[in-house]
């Protein structure tokens, strides 16, 4: 039933089939590549989205990609499909939130917001789960590595983009997403004590987050 110029309904059908069969979310470009040239993918997606509005299955945008998923209000029925989620500790959740709202941010910045040093196991769990990724290095002395969220984070929490993080606009407006506390404002920060001008207390402490030292050695 290959037609030379499929009409928009046919395009919609094909997009529907592709999204349905896909193992993961698809971007508009990925969909377009499988359609005849010039097909209106955006239009088809909008039409589908409307068509599935309020149904048991809905079309959703996550991390700039599209996927079908069951309606959130029906979650109570899905007992058999539910997977026991990996429980994130409070510390891990706060760390994830700090990274999500401040990205890219360094480990020292995460610690400064929480006022405690990041315990071993917190960041690596997030990295391992694929929620967080290493982003790059800050162009400051010590060139600390920065962290950001990965697409999987958006996919897991049904976010179409980072702009959709709850409350992000309000927090930004209130200046709460600013990482730099004005100079001269010094609150003691135990998590950072010992980094610069102190020697480690014990020889076994190498796994404390002492980026600075290693970087100095590298330079």
């Amino acid at each position, binding site marked *: 039933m290959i037609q030379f110029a499929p009409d928009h309904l046919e395009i919609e059908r094909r997009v529907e089939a592709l999204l349905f069969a896909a193992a993961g979310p698809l971007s508009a470009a990925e969909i377009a590549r499988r359609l005849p040239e010039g097909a209106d993918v955006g239009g088809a997606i909008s039409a589908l989205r409307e068509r599935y509005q309020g149904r048991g299955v809905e079309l959703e945008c996550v991390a700039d990609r599209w996927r079908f998923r069951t*309606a959130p209000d029906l979650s109570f029925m899905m007992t058999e*499909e539910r997977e026991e989620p990996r429980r994130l500790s409070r510390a891990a959740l706060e760390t994830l*939130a700090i990274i999500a*709202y401040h990205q890219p941010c360094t480990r020292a910045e995460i610690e400064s917001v929480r006022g405690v040093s990041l315990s071993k196991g917190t960041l690596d769990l997030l990295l391992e789960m*694929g929620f967080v990724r290493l982003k790059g290095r800050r162009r400051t002395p010590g060139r600390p590595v920065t962290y950001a969220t*990965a697409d999987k984070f958006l996919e897991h*929490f049904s976010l179409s983009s980072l702009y959709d993080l709850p409350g992000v606009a309000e927090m930004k407006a209130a200046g709460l997403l600013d990482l730099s506390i004005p100079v001269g404002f010094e609150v003691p920060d135990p998590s950072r004590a010992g980094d610069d001008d102190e020697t480690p207390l014990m020889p076994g402490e190498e796994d404390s987050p002492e980026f600075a030292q290693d970087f100095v050695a590298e330079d």
Partner: protein
Amino acid sequence: MTDAFQPNLDFAAVDQADGRDAFVVDLEGYEGPLHVLLALARTQKVDLLKLSITRLAEQYLAFVHEARRRNFALAADYLVMAAWLAYLKSRLLLPRTEKAGEEAPAEEMAAALAFRLRKLEAMRRAVEAIQSRPQLKRDVFTRGDPEALVVIPSDRIEASLYELMAAYVTQRRREEQRRYNPGQRVEAFALEAAREWLRDLLPRLEQWTPLNRVAPAKHGAEGPSQASFTASTLSAGLELVKEGAMEVKQAGTFAELYLKRRSVGQPLELVP
């Protein structure tokens, strides 16, 4: 984002996970001084913008006092914060002197603290907001059975820096394990030595003697293991049996092995 949050945050359920954590002193679930301060600030029941830092300082000092009274080994963090808050409070209460020196005015320091508390509070609320979003495989579900034949690959390559690092470290570890380690060399009781040992012993082996009494006994930590002494002795013994100088018998599988010298002229016993 939910605006209604409890004045007393639920700290009891906080962070039971990180068991291997050595840094955090668990003061009934408080993770650090800032978390305690935030919880205390909430009890003032005012907008965090209008927080009274002097009152907060008093509350915190009382908290630390109480914690110490109850025999908590207080982490240095808590004491540093206590000292700093006491200092800040005194500066806030004292009339400002003419020469301020190089230090920031106490009001600014107080504002910085208030800012950090508001920030931490914002992140706590963000955690709640994020968690209340529909979560994949908890609230929403994607297709349970993508048609097996149809593979629609994504155009992104799935490899993160973390995976790259992990792959690198795993291999370096394996490389390390492969490396020759003389410290772990297993010393064996040489077959030649076992043969000599048995030949020396042979004239005295007139009775059936258990193998473990024939094999040399291990002395001290050095040298071959007892298992190696036994194995090599048995091996050498079998050679002697083949040469017709010795006999071996065993009543059953895993039973004790007995060795005996074979007298000259004695016919070979055929054991069924």
